[in-house]
Structures are given as C-alpha cells and as structure tokens.
C-alpha cells in the first residue's frame, strides 16, 4: 500500500517526541531542577545548549523534561472525551429524534463559548494545574467527536445496509458496535491527533497564563512566560521552548493528515 509522505514524516516526528518524553528525563545533560544563582541567564554554549534561566537552571534539560509533562497531560485529557464523544455521536446519529435534537443543542451551546474563555472558567472553578485541565477537557473535549461522528453515522444510517442488518434480525447494539463503529472509527482517530495537538497547545497556553502546570514542574508554557521579561536582551529564553511545541504540533498534524489520506477519508 502507498504510504503518504505526510504519514511517514508525522510518524517519525511523533515517534521522536514520544521517545524524548519516555527516555528524555533519564538522559538529560543537567538536573532540570538544580538552581545555580551565580550561573543564571547564560547564553547558549557547549555545556548549556539553550543557555540557563534566571535561576541558573539548564533550559535544554527543562525543555526535554517538560515534554513528558505536557504530552502526558495532553494524551490523558484526550482519552475520556474520545470515548464519550464517539459514543454520543454514534448513538445520537443512529437514534435521531429527541435525543439527537438535545445532543445537537448541547453541542451548539458549547461551541458558542470562545474556547479559552470556557476552559479558563472551568479551570477557575475546578482548580489550576493538571486536575483542572483534565476536568475542563472532560467537559468540552467530546464535542468535536460528537459532531463529526454524528454526521457520519447519520449519513451511513440512511444507506440501505443498516436497514438490511436490522431486517435480518440484528439488535441495535450489534448494528452500532459491530457494523457502524468500524465505519466511523478512522475519522475519530484522525480527529484524535488534532485534539491531542489542540490540548497540548491549550496546556501550554494555560501554563503561559499561570493557570496550568504549576512551578517548579517544567512546562513549556510557564518557561515561555518566565522568559518573556528577557525577550529584549536574551531572546532565546522565551522563544526556544516554543520550538518544542511547534515540532510536536506539526508532527501530530502531519500524522493526522497522513492517516486521513491513507484511509481515504477526504
């Protein structure tokens, strides 16, 4: 079978990021928590590849260790919404009627909120840090799956074979799980890549706003906001951690696009 170049590039990039997340903390050149106040704000050098921050901590080591934190939260936060969203989308698209109306109105309502306003409000109520982010995503994250899967399930249900399966005596659960699910799951997996990317960007943005991962745990977003005051004199402090976000994000995007091409979903 043909392998789309986007799929290969995306898989390689995501593979690198996952390897860094798993192994990085074991092999970093410096202790990411070790402060050295006399050695703070050093420019990049052979010992400190990305330089040191205002507390003298090695920025490269912190970027590497933050990969594990940020990726873990993104993947964890993406899991429950994936399952719930696919379930809701399947059932509401298949059942139609009153349930479908209700689900569609809930979807419309959540979409009316600017994403960051809603997430910040939930994090405000549920507490900052990892727990708040997970709760916020559990509440809003299922929406995109429900939308996409509902539309696709509705289209499939109108094709004759669903009626044929029902007429042949198959139960509703059997039609849903054995026959409809395999037809929509590819789309959901493609969407999952985008969602992990969006959650990762949201985690980093919340960190930047001081509402995400709390210090001293390394996180790309807090590193960028801590470094912002030094932008004029030491531009590498706030900008280099952003490259890690961009690399991971492009990898996830390409992987999603590649899977969509491979499974001919477009």
């Amino acid at each position, binding site marked *: 079978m043909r392998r789309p170049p986007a799929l290969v590039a995306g898989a390689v990039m995501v593979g690198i990021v996952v390897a860094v997340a798993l192994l990085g903390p074991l092999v970093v050149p410096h202790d990411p928590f070790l402060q050295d106040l006399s050695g703070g704000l050093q420019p990049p050098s052979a010992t400190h590849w990305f330089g040191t921050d205002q507390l003298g901590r090695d920025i490269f080591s912190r970027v590497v260790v933050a990969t594990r934190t940020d990726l873990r939260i993104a993947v964890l936060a993406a899991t429950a919404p994936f399952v719930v969203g696919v379930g809701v989308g399947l059932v509401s698209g298949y059942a139609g009627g009153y349930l479908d109306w209700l689900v569609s109105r809930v979807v419309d309502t959540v979409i009316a909120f600017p994403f960051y306003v809603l997430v910040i409000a939930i994090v405000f109520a549920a507490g900052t840090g990892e727990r708040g982010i997970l709760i916020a995503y559990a509440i809003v994250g299922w929406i995109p799956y429900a939308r996409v899967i509902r539309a696709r399930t509705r289209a499939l249900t109108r094709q004759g074979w669903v009626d044929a399966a029902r007429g042949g005596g198959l139960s509703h659960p059997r039609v849903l799980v054995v026959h409809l699910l395999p037809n929509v799951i590819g789309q959901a997996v493609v969407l999952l890549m985008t969602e992990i990317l969006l959650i990762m960007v949201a985690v980093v*943005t919340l960190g930047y706003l001081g509402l995400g991962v709390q210090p001293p745990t390394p996180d790309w977003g807090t590193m960028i906001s801590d470094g912002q005051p030094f932008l004029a004199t030491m*531009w590498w402090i706030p900008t280099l951690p952003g490259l890690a976000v961009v690399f991971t994000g492009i990898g996830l995007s390409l992987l999603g696009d590649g899977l969509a091409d491979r499974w001919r979903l477009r």
Partner: protein
Amino acid sequence: MRWLVRTLASVVPVVVGVVLGVFFLLRIVPGDPAQMILGDQATTASIEELRSRLGLDLPLSQQFAAFLAGIVSNGDLGRSLVTDQPVSALIGERVGITLALVALALVFTVLLAVPLALAAAVNRDGPVDHVVRALPAVGMAMPAFWIGLLLVLVFGLGLRWFPVGGIGSGPGEPLRSLVLPALTVALGMSPPLVRSLREQLVEVLDADFVATARAAGLPARRVLGVHVLRNAAVPTLALLGVNVAYLIGGTLVVEKVFAINGMGALLFSAVSTRDFPVVQGIALFCALAVVVVSLATDLLVGVLDPRLRR
C-alpha cells in the same frame, strides 16, 4: 419569511443553554466557590459569611431565579468581590479596546487570507498552493502567544516599527499599538480559513459562468476581480462568522502578551483574585456576543445569497 423566523428561533435554545451552562458549570464543578475564593486558610465562619453574601446558601433553584432576574431586568451580572463595582460596568470599561483589537484582527485576517487563497486557487498545485495546503498544520501547532512574542522580537525590539506593549497615547499611537497584537490574532486565525477559502474559490473557478465569461473574451483580471471574488465573498463572510468564537478567545489570550488592558486582562486578574462574579459575567458576555455575531452573519449571508439559507 419562514427562513427569518426559523433562523431567529434557532438561537433561542442556544441562549438558554449558554445561560444555564454558565450558571451551573461554575457550581457543579467539584469545590465550593466560597472555599475557593477564600483559600485553604479560611475559617468556617468566614466561609459561611461569604456563602450568604453570594447567595450560595440558598437552594440552587432560587439562586438561578435571582441570577436570571438580574440579567433579564437590567443586564445585572452581580458585583465584583474585589472592587464591589457592578460586573457590567467593569466589562463596559474594558470592552472597547478588545473590540478595537478584534476589528483590526478581522481586517488583517481578510487581507492575509483572501489574496493567499486566491493565489493558491488560481495556480492549483503551484508553489503557493502547496504552501497554503501545509499552512493549517503549521498554524495549529503555533500557540498564539508565542507568535506574538516572535512578532515583538522582530518588529518591536528589532526593527522598532511598533511598540512592544501597552497602548500608546498621541495621534495615531493607539492604532499603532494594536497592529502587532491584531496581526498575532490574524496569523493564528488565517491558516484554516485560507484552506476553506481556497476550496470555495476552486469551486467558483470551476463554475460554468467563469468559463462563459472567459469564452466571451473578458480579460482574466476582470473575471477574477469581479466575477470570482464577488461570488466568493459571501462564503468568506459565512466562514468568518463560524470562526468568531475563536477570534474572541484568541484575542483575550493575545492581550496578555502585549499587556493590553481589555477584557482578557480583566478575566485573568479576576481569576487570580478569585473574583467569581466577574469570571461568570465575562463567560456569559463572551458567549452571548458570539451568539449575536453568528446570528447576524447567518442573516446577512442569507440576505446576500438566498441559496445559502439553512
């Protein structure tokens, strides 16, 4: 007429959902708001006192009735716990600068997206088209605040074309201060928009009337500028309407990067001072603003091009 009624009516469940959502979301999430506001060291007595001041000791149904009555009667969103000013007044003070930023961002988005999409659609599979198709992948991966920092670095600190933060005073200065923040929002919003717009334009370019116009000997420029763009304008408007929630949310975050004292700054300071009514009021205000703007674009699109009525 039926379309008008149907479109207007479709907003009702969403507005109800938004009001219910804002009210219950901040209350059913685990944790007591009074405890949350006062922190871990608060005494039971002071928590009880705040609970009754906020009306949190009443049954949920009564709280909701009071909340709803306040909004419906005079737009009352409660008072700030920190300054005791009405939340609606606080929002009123800040909304102007945020709206100015949103408006300028919208202008930049159109100026960026339309020419790019046009260039890509006209030269299909050309170099610009490949860039445009790759843009969403790159755009989604870049956090808006980080794009903002890069713009500050290059155009603020490096070239010194624009101020690096805050809102300047003097003739033309406020506008100059908004250029980089608006550009940041526009760069975040454009990539997915360019891709959708390119698809719309490709469809228009393949339409029979374009072939007819060309066959009739109209210059290519005139076909593009008059016939294609005019037919692509309405779908573009519809796309912008769909993305208005993103536009507002992105703007609030970008305010932080450029130290702009708008609604975003109000929201973030309310979050850090645990100012419950202000957070609630901003969430409600933003969601209702999105609903109103989406409705307005739906209506405008329907009037301009009745084929697109839903």
